[in-house]
């Protein structure tokens, strides 16, 4: 099979233009691009790529369908394993998952599996009506949280014939897909579309329901639910615990991104929630969340957006593509620097941040080299906004209300990996609330396994 050694490029918005809008950065393959890229796949007998996908998408077969121009069939093939291909095609860390395992990657560039997945999902988006499933009578399941884990459990169980109700704390479903990942990386229309499809399966979504406050898990059982799935994510922001962190102009990445994505502050004052962005913005951290915050700040008019990270380039946890996009857009990286305090004026607004230079020492528990501060190397960075993006833990509201669910010392739920089963009878959990902040596809994988286990659990109980 003739195949190019380099993968087919995906058209993107020009960085100079895109920093003035919230439209999607990556524009997606055309039909021709997709056909060309699909041709590169070797149709391996034992496809290694599949092993890299947490939900085991039939990559070889869907790509073969793409090559034949059967795009809708290809989408159907993916959907056997993955309910949210339009989302995963965009935000999966493919370079560490499916594409990392692709055999072509040994000598040349791996097949652009994510781009192909995105293409077929978008192509088939409006082509296929989800079959309306009449809500089944196999049992009633409550799902807490409407992020990727919750949506996956709900869809799978509805298809199996259960009556499923999702309870979501926010006024919009989708979890991080809605409030965290920005529009320019994942258009909210796509998330809404996926949610609508799940609703068409007969799943009911009750918004504005904070479980643990309006009602507890025991009450859900009392109301007749046979099982409960907890997919509440890792939404509790961590702060640095340094001086000046409560000054005006210091945000958690969660607050900053929620104001912009969920509350549409970028359309203020048409939408009534404001967001303050100064001229110079420092973002502390170097994960996907930090990249999203830094790039969002530029789009809101910041003249400079600076990533401050205590380790080096190698250690940055964000996806390669996100780091590259951030750099193209003009985000500045001050690596090997750690904030020591935030400085403010008399009115309590941020005017600067004191940082200290760092060196890398021996590897720590995480396997990454431990940063050590260089004595006497403090310096001042003049900024008027600081966004803290150093990680999140599970929100304790539900867990405080349900002390009989066992948790770890990190506040995550202890659940069996293969089933999601927790220490509390009939309660299953999966996604970030179990693993700590991870990825969309891992949350979906956990959701899939839990749906299977919940089905078995309820069927056993009925018999």
């Amino acid at each position, binding site marked *: 099979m003739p195949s190019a050694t380099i993968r087919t490029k995906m058209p993107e918005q020009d960085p100079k233009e895109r920093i*003035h*809008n*919230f439209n999607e950065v990556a524009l997606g393959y055309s039909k021709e691009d997709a056909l060309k890229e699909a041709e590169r796949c070797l149709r391996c007998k034992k496809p290694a790529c599949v092993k890299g996908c947490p939900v085991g998408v039939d990559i070889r077969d869907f790509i073969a369908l793409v090559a034949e121009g059967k795009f809708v069939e290809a989408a159907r093939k993916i959907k056997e394993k993955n309910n949210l291909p339009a989302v995963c095609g965009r935000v999966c860390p493919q370079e560490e998952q499916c594409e990392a395992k692709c055999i072509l990657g040994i000598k040349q560039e791996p097949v652009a599996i994510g781009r192909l997945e995105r293409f077929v999902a978008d192509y088939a988006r409006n082509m296929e009506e989800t079959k309306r499933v009449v809500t089944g009578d196999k049992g009633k399941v409550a799902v807490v949280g409407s992020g990727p884990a919750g949506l996956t459990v709900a869809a799978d169980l509805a298809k199996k014939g259960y009556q499923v109700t999702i309870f979501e*704390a*926010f*006024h919009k479903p989708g979890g991080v897909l809605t409030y965290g990942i920005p529009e320019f990386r994942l258009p909210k229309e796509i998330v809404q579309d996926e949610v609508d499809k799940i609703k068409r399966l007969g799943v009911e979504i009750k*918004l*504005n*329901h*904070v479980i643990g*406050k*309006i*009602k507890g898990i025991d009450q859900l059982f009392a109301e007749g639910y046979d099982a409960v799935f907890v997919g509440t994510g890792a*939404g*509790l*922001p961590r*702060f640095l*615990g340094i001086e000046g*962190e*409560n*000054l*005006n*102009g210091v*945000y*958690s990445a*969660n*607050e900053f991104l*929620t*104001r912009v994505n969920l*509350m*549409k502050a*970028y*359309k*203020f*004052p*048409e*939408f*009534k*929630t*404001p967001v*303050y962005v100064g001229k110079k913005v420092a973002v502390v951290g170097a994960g996907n969340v930090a990249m999203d915050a830094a790039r969002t700040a530029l*789009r*809101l*008019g910041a003249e400079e957006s600076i990533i401050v990270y205590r380790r080096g380039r190698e250690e940055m946890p964000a996806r390669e593509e996100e780091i590259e996009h951030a750099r193209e857009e003009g985000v500045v990286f001050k690596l090997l620097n750690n904030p020591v305090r935030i400085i403010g004026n008399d*009115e*309590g607004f941020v005017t600067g941040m004191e940082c200290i230079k760092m060196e890398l020492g021996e590897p720590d528990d995480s396997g990454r080299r431990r940063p050590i501060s260089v004595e006497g190397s403090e310096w001042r960075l003049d900024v008027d906004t600081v966004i803290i993006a150093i990680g999140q833990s599970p*929100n*304790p*509201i539900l867990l405080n209300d349900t002390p009989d669910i066992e948790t770890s010392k990190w506040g995550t739920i202890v659940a069996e990996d293969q089933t999601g089963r927790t220490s509390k009878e009939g309660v299953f959990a999966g996604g970030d609330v179990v693993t700590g902040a991870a990825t969309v596809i891992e949350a979906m994988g956990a959701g899939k396994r839990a749906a299977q286990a919940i089905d078995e659990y309820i069927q056993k109980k009925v018999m």
Partner: protein
Amino acid sequence: MYKILKKEVLAPEITRFKVAAPEIAASAEPGHFIIVRVDEKAERIPLTIADYDKKEGTITIIVQAVGFSSRQICNLETGDSFLDLVGPLGKHISTEGYKKVICVAGGLGAAPLYPKAKSLAENGAEIITILGARTGELLILEEEFSALSKELYITTDDGSRGRKGFVTDALRDLLEEDSDIDLVIAIGPMVMMKFVSELTKPYGVKTMVSLNSLMVDGTGMCGGCRVTVGGETKFACVDGPAFDGHLVDFDEQLRRQRFYARYEEEAKVHGHAGGEYQCHLQQ
């Protein structure tokens, strides 16, 4: 959708709504609040549950029009609905075991104070109330408080009703006279709560305040409502909104409340039209 069953104007710019919300009413306790959104473009606005009726399945909120969003709420009528209403949020407060409590309300603070005073009274506490306002016509819930209080004092800044002066003037006299007060609850503007807390401190009387910090989600996921209490950072929406007034860093809270002052003006001026903010995105 959460339907408004009854609307009453209590004072200029202050409106009381009874809303059908059976599940929230069923779980509501003193100290809880809700967050409402009027329409698709609206802000999430925190409001205290000023009263609730579990049997009837209703909650009462009292709203003061101070800016765009609160005015938008006050313009709703009986029969209209809130698009979103989430709650009960916050930590409920314990109202048991108190013998003698002074309740201090500044202006609209009477609304969030009421369910706490009511519950304290039901649990056997003797209630002394001080209601303060800028001017007489802004006093609210006078009858309700008078019904559950042994003594009721009124102060107004301009002297148009009751004693001319601040709530702290009346409170100082009471603290001087009476040494067996076991709790002061003060709810009102941040400055008022600050001065009340400073006043009670030398008397060693436990003082509870309820903070109206800026909030987004109200569930502990944004940290926008952070407040320093006893040197530690707390989230007002989940650790509060009620805190020990002697431990709260009020000056920090006063500064944080001013964070969005500039934008409030803009929201008001621009109404629904796109403003300066949008234009620069389209450049």
